[in-house]
Structures are given as C-alpha cells and as structure tokens.
C-alpha cells in the first residue's frame, strides 16, 4: 500500500493531545483572521506562529512533500498571474508609486506591487501550515466527530470519514483497472497523443465509477443495517471531553478573529499602508 499523500501522522506531539474540535476551531479562527485582514504585520505574526506550531508538533516537511510542492507551485503561479494581469494593483491600492524596475509596457515593478504580493504570499504562510497541521495531527475518525461537534449534521460529517476510508480502495482499483487496460493496449502514458490519452483514460474511469457506485450500495446497506441515519443524533467512539488546554485554544482562536476585526477598524480599512 502506498503511503497517502496527506493524512494523519502518528508521531505524538503537543497538538496531538488537543481534541479535534479545539484544533478545528483554531484552524477556522486562523483562516478567518487571515481572510479578514490584509495587515502585513498581523499576517507575519500569524505565519510565524503557524511555523512555530509546525516545528513544535514534530511534523516533518518530508511527511507532506507532495502537498507542499503543490501548494508552493500554486503560490508561485498565483504571484506570477497577479503581476501579469494586475501589475498596477498595488499602486491603486496604496495611492503611491515607487518604481523599482522600469519594465516593458505597464509591467513596471513598483514597491507597492511588491508589498501587495508579499502580503498575498504571507497569507499562504499564515493559513496553509495551520490547515495541514490540523489534518496531520487529528486522527481521521476524530476529524468527523469534531465536524459534527461544531454543528455539521452527522450524516455529512461522517461522509468525510467514509471518504478517507475508501480513498485507498479507490486508488487500488484505479491502479488495477488502468494496468489491465494498458495490457490491452490502452496506453494512458505520455507516449500517446493527448486525445488518445484522454479517450483511454475514460476507459479506465468508467469501470472505476461503476465500481464506486456498487461500493456505495454495499456500504449504505451495511450502514443502514447497523442503524445509521435512524436517530437525529449519534455519539462518537472517539469523543474526548474538553480540557483546560482545549478551552485556551478556542479562546486564542476567538482572539485572533477579534484582533483581525480590530485592525480593520484601527487601520480604517483591511490594508495597513506603510507608504502613507
């Protein structure tokens, strides 16, 4: 079995001892705060805190290499595209213009643009480590129960757990089907033209999809026979009572959001303008 790209890392650290619900609230707090605020000082503080947490919880970048790669690529692309399509956005935003490099056409590099894009990049650093930490330090079943605890209906939150349960099975099916089809000559590798590859890929995905539907039928029978969905509520095996540290974490999350809102009021807008 191949290791999952993104999942629980069983290497106990301080974050592992918190309840899933507390961590989920913290993540929501951090994401909320980072979305509200464009204050570079605040985002930088969040990013530093996130990275410190990461270090403290003994998660290694290697555990998430693929995901970090994807996020990193997106971050770079995002920056390039912002510059390509809106090179003057920083100037519009801050009302000043300090040209650093005189580029072709309207693509001049200004301090304002650079600062704006730095803020966008900071958001990645503020949000992503926290989200990944939640996923890697929370056992998947607790994941579902914590969603349910913050008010998501259990039928919905259990589907998260079910998805995690069946992803490895679907991955294995995909490999099996694709190999059998390749043996028949349906090549999905780079050797083929794109059109042929797509057509061949459909020949793999169709059986996979039908198989998944059958699987859903079995699972829902099994769940129904064991009483799932009958009552309005359910309990969770993995429920842990809140302890003082969980309450502290939830308070911190609330403070972060409150701080972000306070900054908006103080700065008279979502941006902090160092050029003013």
């Amino acid at each position: 079995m191949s290791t999952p790209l993104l999942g629980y890392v069983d290497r106990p650290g301080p974050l592992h001892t918190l309840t899933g619900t507390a961590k989920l609230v913290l993540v929501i707090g951090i994401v909320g705060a980072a979305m509200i605020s464009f204050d570079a000082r605040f985002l930088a503080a969040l990013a530093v805190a996130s990275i410190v947490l990461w270090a403290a919880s003994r998660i290694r970048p290697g555990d998430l290499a693929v995901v970090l790669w994807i996020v990193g690529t997106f971050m770079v692309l995002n920056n390039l595209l912002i510059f390509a399509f809106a090179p003057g956005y920083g100037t519009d935003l801050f009302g000043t213009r300090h040209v650093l490099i005189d580029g072709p056409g309207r693509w001049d590099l200004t301090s304002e643009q650079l600062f704006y894009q730095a803020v966008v990049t900071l958001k990645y650093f503020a949000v992503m480590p926290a989200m990944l930490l939640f996923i890697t330090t929370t056992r998947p079943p607790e994941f579902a129960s914590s969603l349910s605890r913050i008010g998501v209906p259990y039928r919905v939150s259990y589907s998260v757990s079910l998805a995690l349960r069946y992803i490895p099975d679907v991955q294995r099916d995909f490999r099996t089907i694709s190999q059998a089809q390749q043996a028949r000559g349906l090549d999905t590798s780079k050797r083929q033209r794109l059109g042929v590859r797509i057509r061949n890929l459909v020949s793999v995905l169709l059986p996979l999809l039908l198989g998944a539907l059958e699987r859903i039928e079995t699972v829902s029978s099994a769940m129904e026979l064991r009483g799932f969905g009958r009552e309005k509520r359910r309990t969770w095996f993995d429920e842990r009572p809140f302890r003082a540290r969980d309450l502290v974490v939830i308070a911190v999350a609330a403070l972060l959001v409150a701080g972000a809102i306070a900054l908006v009021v103080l700065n008279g807008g979502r941006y902090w303008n160092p050029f003013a």
Partner: protein
Amino acid sequence: MTDDVLIELAGYGFQYRAQSAPTLHDIDLTVRRGEKIVIVGASGSGKSTLLSVMNGMVPHRYPGTATGSVRVGGSDPAQVPLVETSRHVGTVLQDISGQFVALTAREDIAFSLENQQVPAADMPARVQRAAALVDIEDHLDAAPHALSGGQKQRVAIAGVLVDDVDVLLFDEPLAMLDPASGRTAIELIDTLNREHGTTIVMVEHRLEDVLHRDVDRIVLMEGGRIIADAPPGEVIASGLLEAAGIRPPLHVAALAYAGAPVAAYQRPGSAETIALTDAQIAAVRNWAGGRDAAERSSEQPGAGAGSAAGGPRASAVPAPAPEAPVVPEVDGPTVLALEDVGVVLGASRTSPGERVLHGVSTRVRRGEMIGILGSNGAGKSTLARTVCGFVPHSTGRILLDGADASAWPIAQRGERVGFVLQEPGQMISKPLIAEEIALGLEARGLSEAEIAERTERVLEVCGLAPFRTWPVSALSHGQKKRLTIASVLALEPEVLILDEPTAGQDFAHYTEFMDFLASVNAGGTTVLLITHDMHLALEYTDRVLVVSGGQIIADASPADVLTDREITRRADLVTTGLHTLAERCGLPEPARLVRRFVEVDRQVRAERSASAQQRDGAQRADGADGANGGPA
C-alpha cells in the same frame, strides 16, 4: 409462537417490484433459538432474497409485494423499522471489505453503538467484549487494508455481536476467503453457536466447506421454493443436492462413484466423522486400485517437499513419486519462463521495502493449463502481475517465447500475455459487446476488416455470437466474464492468465465456465489460473504451482499437492475430504484415490454436458449409474 421461535415464515411469497414473476413461493421455515442452519441453492434459487426477508432489507430497501406471513423476533419486519429487526438479527454481508465502514477495527465494531447514542464512556468495554468473542482483540487499532479477509470478517461479526443479537445471518461467508481462512471461519461460527448459544443462519453454496463443522439442518432451495429442510445426513443421502445444482461433499460423490453410496444414518456430512461400513471401505479400496497400491512402497508422493523447507533453491520442485508421472509432459516449446525472479515492493530511500517474491523459477509450455495456488497474500497474484509487467521485478529474468521481456512495457507484454481480472466490471468500459471487443484491437491499430474478423471469431469461441448486438448491461455475470475473456482473446495472446475465474459462482455456472476455459485451452491457448479453489485445480489442471511466502513451494500434479499435508499446511490450503476418505479406508497413497476420482468425475461431466438438454433429474441418474458401470 413460542419464545424459542426466532424466525418464522409461513406460506410466504415475494415478488420484487421490478420483476414480472415472484422470486419466492410458499416458503415455510422456522428458526429456533440455538439452531444452526445452512441455506443452499444455485444462483437465482431465491436464497439471497430469503436472507433479505429475514433481516428486513426486503421490503425496506428492496420493495415488492409479499404474501403469507413472516415474523422475526415476534414482529413483521415490514411493519417495524429496519433497525428494530437488526436488534434481533445481525447480518454479516458477503462483501467483506465493503461492509467495513470505519477507519479502524475498534470504531467499526462500535459503529452500531454510536448510532444508538451509547455514551462514549460505555463503548470501549462493550467493544472489547465483542472483540473477545471472535478473537480479534489484538487488531483493534488496525486499518481495514492492514487486515486479512478473515480478520475483516471477524470485525464484521463483532460489529453485530456488540448488539447482543439473537441470530447471526451470514451471506456467503466463504465467498471471499481462502480455504484455510474459510475453515477457521466455519470453526468460529460453530464456537459462537455452541458456546454462546448464538443462532446461526448461513447462506452458502460451498456445502462441503460449511460441513467442516456439523449443522442442524440443511435448507435446500430451487426455483424460489424450499425443496428440502432436514438434517444434513438426510439431505446429502437424498441425492437432491446435485439435482438442484449444489455440489455434494467430494467424499460423498466418491463413495457414489465407488458403488457404495452413503445413507442418512451414517452422518455423512464430514469425511472425518462419517460412519463408514466395511462394504464401503472395501468398495473404495477396490475402486481406487487398492491392491496395486498395497504392493508398492508406502512412499508419499510429493514427500520431496520436506527438503524444500531448506532453502529457496531446493524449493522449486518436489521429487515426483516414482510410479506416476507427476507432471504430465505437454509437448511444445516453452512459452513463458521465469528465471530466479524476485520482487520487492515499496522500496524507497528510507525503507528497504517488502520482498514479496524471491527465487521464483518455472517454465510453462505451450498448451498447458496450470493452476497457481496459495492463500491470499502468498504472492500468487504478484507472480501473475509480474509476468504481465504490472509489477517490476528486481532480480531475475522473464522470458516470453525465449525473448527477455524484462524491459518490455505493459502493452508489449500484453500482446503475448492476456490478463483477465476477477471482477468483469473492472474491465468493461463500452456499452456494446462488439465495441468492447474492438476496443483493444483499435488501440493496437488493426485494420477495420481485421477487427471485424477477429471480433466475429472470438464471439464464436466464447459462445457470445447470439448476443453480438446486445448491450453489455443485459448480460449475466458469467456472460460478462466471457466478454472480458473474449476481448483479451481477440488480441491473440499465447498465454491467458485469469484471476480467481470462478469466485462466487455456483456449481452449475462454475462447471459451464470451466468447460469453456478448457475448450479455449484445447484451442491452443496456454492458460494460467490463479485460484484458491482446490476443486478447480483438481478437476481442470494437470499441473499446479503452489505459492507460499513469495516462493514456489511445489510444482506437481494437483492430486499429489492436495493430498500432501505438509504442502497444504504451508500454503494455507486444506486437504480435501477425498484425502480423509483415503486415509480412513487405509489407502497408503491418497493421491491415487484423488486421481481416480478426477478421472471418473471428468467422464461423468463429459457425459452430462453431452446430455445437457435432458432434465436435471435424468442427469443425476446418469451420473451415478454411468460412474458405476463405466470405466473399470
């Protein structure tokens, strides 16, 4: 209705909403507390529907119209919610993996408790107790993919026992297990019944395996009716089983062939416990050629496997028994050869990986039909996948037609070796039969005329010609399976590899399908069958490779392998009832009896397929008589 009657059906009939005729007719069945019952019947006999009636899935999930009456735990399942019925009757589904809904065994067992809102603090003790009943306490933190089939089944059983149900319903509990795990499962079910008083109802068509432990009654179904409901001895001796498409235990068939059929009073369910008469023992000894055997040395065929334990080098082939050519020579060039092939999976910078195959060497000649036997996880699937190029090998060479194919990509190997998956649904991606066959041919860039010609030919070979314009969705499971074989055969491979070709099929479909494969083999295609079905290996192959722990531990005739206790033990196979019968009749060479049985059985089968148009009852009479008077 007394307290002791847990399930009672009277004059019950049922018709699915989507069907034009009833599936069940006039069913009378009573299940009392503490009983252990097995319901047998061919595919389509209504046994699965009957099970669904008992657990309430009919009509809650599968609607339709019912007649007569049904009571489960004192109430009509149709009138109470599904969960209410589940409190009395716990169901263990056939799909062992699919019914595992949680991420660990512990949470899966607790699933029903969670749904009943049992407080979290009360759950661990109850989960522990249920797990102890099925002996799975040591694996409670395991994820589903880390558990074997048998272990997953135990988790499923614990998941219903956690509710203190009265009755356990099993839907084909053996369908997904290898022989040794199946035997363990039957023993576990028996223990639950004897020591914990759990009432057991099993639906299963592998009767011989079920009868490894005694049952109280066999309920035999045919055409939606119960045609027998009696203690096992009576049903087995009645001859009704074969007529209804159920294979009787092999030792019972052997005694019939030997001219000394069993009677109900002998308790003929198990070869271990049957009360054989002196006349029967004499008949078996005579039939198996006991006189000859007595004169020979008592050397066991396949005894060479004892030395095989010494090391991988010595393990390739056990010394054949002197008197019988263990592996019949098939004339013809070597079409596939493996030389010292080793496979390591999951190797990376941080981990040395897992050695799943090592030192595998063998030769396959053109036209052979070979069984690859072994338990789940022994490496037999990996072996086949390595040949096809799905799994890279780290050492050794794979030769196809004498050419080193080690570096060939999957598609190139696919031109010589065709691989057919167990589940036909995983290979079919076109809506029409002809399109599905043409798919691989088009990918190989053949001309339209060539595609049409090959399509026509394989449709003919696979018996699908009458359906050539049908949509795939209108085909039965067996026909879909044929279609996947047709689409692989169209590519004209020299070797055809099939993964568990007969899994889940009843005796009639199994026979029909295997006869078809034998005809494909007779047409010149080399066939490799990955299976843990020992009947299949015995009856349809001349040579088996036994894989265990990533090595080939035996390469011999199936009769020799399956009567060798050492090899079967190491490979998690089980010796068949024939072996036990041979021992109990004092035959020094059990393999002789097995070979004799297979020989006669093949003749009987040939006669049967010749008279396939006749009625089932006539076939049965032919079978028994033909065997007695036939080959002397």
